[in-house]
């Protein structure tokens, strides 16, 4: 069985992620050191000749034995005061002694925890394992992020989902690269510490100073030190006062050199090896020791591991709670009916559960599993495939190789029936189910029923299909499908604006408030999800199990939830909503509408709506803080009866949230439909569309078809089409 990126990410995160969290937090503590060192002492000018630096330090500390340029750029000098070893910061400008030098302000156990979990060599291996896990988590996280956002270009788009999911994705987008770099550099450092790669340089050369004159040269006379700049210096060891043959020894970025204390000649030079340079770079990148702003970045990304771990555990737990469980799932060899499911969010499993239950009650032995396991056995009599289509016609991630698997198998005599799930809003409605159907028929598999495509998880359509199935099987089949509703939140009506409407169908703009829960409640998935204009609110009317969806005319940021509701003849939900008085409540949940809601800030937008379909468009305009050029085409019947949002539209014009508004009223003399106004404004629209404007259409299906026809004509002159724009995500419809 192959593990997908998601399983790898999840299980690695839940296991070794805990260890990675310990490393992240201890790493964040260690990142304080570079910050503190940058504070403690001034950095030396990189261009300062080392010869000058040595003279200054010697003036301040006559017995100095070693001078180090710390990664922060500060200068530390080492020597002895009597028997006591001394380590002091020195001001490189004048040789003033600044105070004691401490390699780290953290207790030593922090570092040992970070690199060895306080367990010595075994701990080092474990820490390296955690670093490897972190690297794999970063890479799998990137794959999942790209999959979720829909590719590199949409990477910066709006993040949807529960609070835990959003935090996980938002933080991932920011620190993923840093975490990946941290783990790779950690692996490099581990490899050299654990002796997996050979240490760079060979043995030091055998060198000694030879006394040719009485007095040793002062530092200022040494050619190598005159040429060397402080920026390149790592460490300088002065010759031992008591050993006449001792030499100067200097370590720089480029290598190591030894100098005769009498002649000043360079006795030997060892170039830094490639392995040493890689090691140095890994260290600099991993610790941030030479640039405190980078240390801050590293520290924050170390802290973020805690956030990833906590939100990751929450996401796993919430998904577990919401997972569909199939009762009476028979084993594959014994089953006479097989149900294969391809589901991205899990909702298709809800349908599979209903089908499975009905078949079991009808006396069948049923086995339900993921579509990636497609196969038949000698006992199989019927096969059903329930396949959802994801995004622009892609299969759900777990079933992405299923099509090849089906194509690779020889056809059997058992009927295989496909049921597709999708959304007509997308140009490739049920494309994956269609591809499966075509492949099966091309291979020669028979079918009990032709392909049926269910739009927006319609339970009515599914019930009809169930009826047809019972007939084809020749046995009674009681499919009991109850849509799995997300937990609802009680909304309270704040205010309403009533419109008389037409044909005795009143309409109202309803504004609700929702209870604000503390963040830890929201993190656990409670409360109303975040929403934006164009997303949907599902309202569950009392006495109804089926939610009705309304397009949102506001976003969470507006602080209220607004919808435009028109009386539906005999409609349970619209009657319930229109009967609400301020202070009354209703049960609701949010369903995101990613294809329709505005993802990122477009340059210009063409918003076309009719009737209550203006609601989400009004929401877009309301939240247009970036002053995108938005052009509204609004069709209604009578300005006196159903010009929704009229005062707001005027105000938004004045605030430049709305660039222009054109209206069409069909029930006034000389009036017309919105598509007529579009046709009239053909040239203007041509220019807008040529300039890259996005299009949003909301209203009835016939109106949307008429609009699409007009725009297709205009786009045709530009060598484009509505279909092409839909594929690119520039054109979207919200229909009712």
């Amino acid at each position, binding site marked *: 069985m192959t593990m997908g990126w998601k399983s790898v990410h999840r299980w690695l995160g839940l296991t070794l992620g805990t260890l990675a969290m310990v490393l992240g937090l201890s790493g964040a503590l260690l990142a304080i050191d570079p910050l503190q060192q940058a504070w403690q002492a001034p950095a030396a000018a990189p261009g300062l000749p080392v010869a000058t630096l040595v003279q200054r330090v010697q003036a301040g500390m006559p017995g100095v034995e*070693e001078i180090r340029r710390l990664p922060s750029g500060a200068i530390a000098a*080492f020597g*002895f005061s009597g*028997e006591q*070893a001394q*380590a002091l910061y020195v001001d490189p400008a004048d040789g003033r002694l600044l105070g004691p030098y401490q*390699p*780290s302000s953290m207790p*030593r156990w922090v570092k*040992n925890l970070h690199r060895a979990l306080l367990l010595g*060599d075994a701990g080092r291996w474990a820490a390296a394992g955690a670093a490897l896990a972190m690297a794999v988590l970063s890479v799998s996280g990137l794959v999942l992020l790209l999959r979720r956002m829909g590719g590199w270009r949409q990477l910066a788009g709006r993040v949807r989902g529960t609070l835990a999911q959003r935090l996980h994705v938002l933080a991932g987008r920011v620190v993923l690269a840093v975490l990946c770099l941290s783990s790779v550099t950690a692996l490099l450092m581990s490899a*050299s*510490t654990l*002796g997996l790669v050979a*240490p760079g*340089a*060979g*043995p*030091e*050369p*055998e060198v000694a100073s030879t006394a040719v004159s009485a007095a040793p040269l002062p530092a200022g006379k040494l050619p190598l030190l005159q040429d060397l700049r402080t920026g390149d210096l790592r460490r300088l060891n002065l010759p*031992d006062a008591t050993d006449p043959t001792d030499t100067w020894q200097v370590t720089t970025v480029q290598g190591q050199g030894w100098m005769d204390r009498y002649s000043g000649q360079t006795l030997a030079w060892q170039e830094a090896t490639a392995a040493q340079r890689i090691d140095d770079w890994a260290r600099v990148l991993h610790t941030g020791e030479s640039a405190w702003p980078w240390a801050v970045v590293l520290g924050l990304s170390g802290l973020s591991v805690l956030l990833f771990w906590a939100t990751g555990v929450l996401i796993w737990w919430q998904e577990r709670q919401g997972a569909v469980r199939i009762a009476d799932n028979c084993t594959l060899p014994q089953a006479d009916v097989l149900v294969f499911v391809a589901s991205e969010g899990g909702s298709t499993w809800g349908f599979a559960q209903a089908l499975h239950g009905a078949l079991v009650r009808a006396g069948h032995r049923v086995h339900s599993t993921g579509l990636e396991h497609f196969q038949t056995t000698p006992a199989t009599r019927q096969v059903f495939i329930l396949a959802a289509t994801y995004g622009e016609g892609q299969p759900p991630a777990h079933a992405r190789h299923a099509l090849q698997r089906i194509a690779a198998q020889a056809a059997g005599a058992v009927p295989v029936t496909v049921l597709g799930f999708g959304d007509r809003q997308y140009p490739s409605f049920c494309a994956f189910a269609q591809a499966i159907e075509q492949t099966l028929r091309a291979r020669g598999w028979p079918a009990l029923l032709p392909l049926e495509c269910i739009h927006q998880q319609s339970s009515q359509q599914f019930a009809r299909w169930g009826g047809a199935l019972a007939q084809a099987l020749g046995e009674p089949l009681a499919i009991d499908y109850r849509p799995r509703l997300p937990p609802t939140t009680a909304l309270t009506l704040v205010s309403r604006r009533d419109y008389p409407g037409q044909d005795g169908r009143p309409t109202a703009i309803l504004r609700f408030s929702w209870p604000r829960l503390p963040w830890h409640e929201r993190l656990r998935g409670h409360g109303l999800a975040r929403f934006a204009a164009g997303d949907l609110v599902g309202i569950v009317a009392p006495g109804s199990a089926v939610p009705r969806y309304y397009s949102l005319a506001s976003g969470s940021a507006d602080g209220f939830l607004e919808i435009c509701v028109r009386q539906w003849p005999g409609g349970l939900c619209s009657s319930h909503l229109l009967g609400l008085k301020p202070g009354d409540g209703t049960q609701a949940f949010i369903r995101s509408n990613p294809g329709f809601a505005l993802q990122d800030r477009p340059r210009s937008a063409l918003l076309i709506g009719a009737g209550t379909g203006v609601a989400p468009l009004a929401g877009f305009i309301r939240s247009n803080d970036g002053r995108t050029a938005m052009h509204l085409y609004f069709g209604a019947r009578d300005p006196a009866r159903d010009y929704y949002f009229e005062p707001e539209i005027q105000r938004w014009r004045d605030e430049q949230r709305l660039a222009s508004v054109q209206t069409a009223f069909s029930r006034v003399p000389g009036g017309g439909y919105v598509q007529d106004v579009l046709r009239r404004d053909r040239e203007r629209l041509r220019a807008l569309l040529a300039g890259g404007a996005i299009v949003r259409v909301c209203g009835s299906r016939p109106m949307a078809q008429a609009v699409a026809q007009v725009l297709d004509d205009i786009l045709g002159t530009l060598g484009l089409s509505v279909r092409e724009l839909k594929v690119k995500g520039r054109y979207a419809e919200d229909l009712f």
Partner: protein
Amino acid sequence: MSTKPLLTAIAAACALALPAQGQARQVTLTTQLKNYGGDGAYLAVYLTDAKGAYAGTLWVAGGKAKYYKHLSDWNRLSAGDARRLNGVTGASVGAGRTLKVTADLADALIDAGYEIRVDAAVEDMRDSPGEIRLPLTTQNAGKPQPGRQYIQSLTYQLQ
């Protein structure tokens, strides 16, 4: 002063490359570290002859080859000795602890200008090549010798 347990290491045998093999004597070296406030110290205990040339390694405390360059004198002098680590390595020695090493030394090495030398290094602290240089003489036996930075005292006993 230190209440920490002794860290005892026994060097089973030291086959030193010597000009003449005579009678062997057992030498016990006791190295007491200061409380210098750092991680475990890397120590290299070795012998040099009258001319200052490397004569053999008695003990190396600390197992990571990556860090041997910080024991710079020993690392340089012993570079030609392929067997310098054979059977004479152990863990690094924590601050305040004691390292006890036993070695068999040929009689010819004692009172012959040979020197016991110790290089020491501690992570994030200053390297200390030549931490201790102590002539290997009968007279010096039993006399504690202080180190420059990390070693409180080194004492050897001849048996």
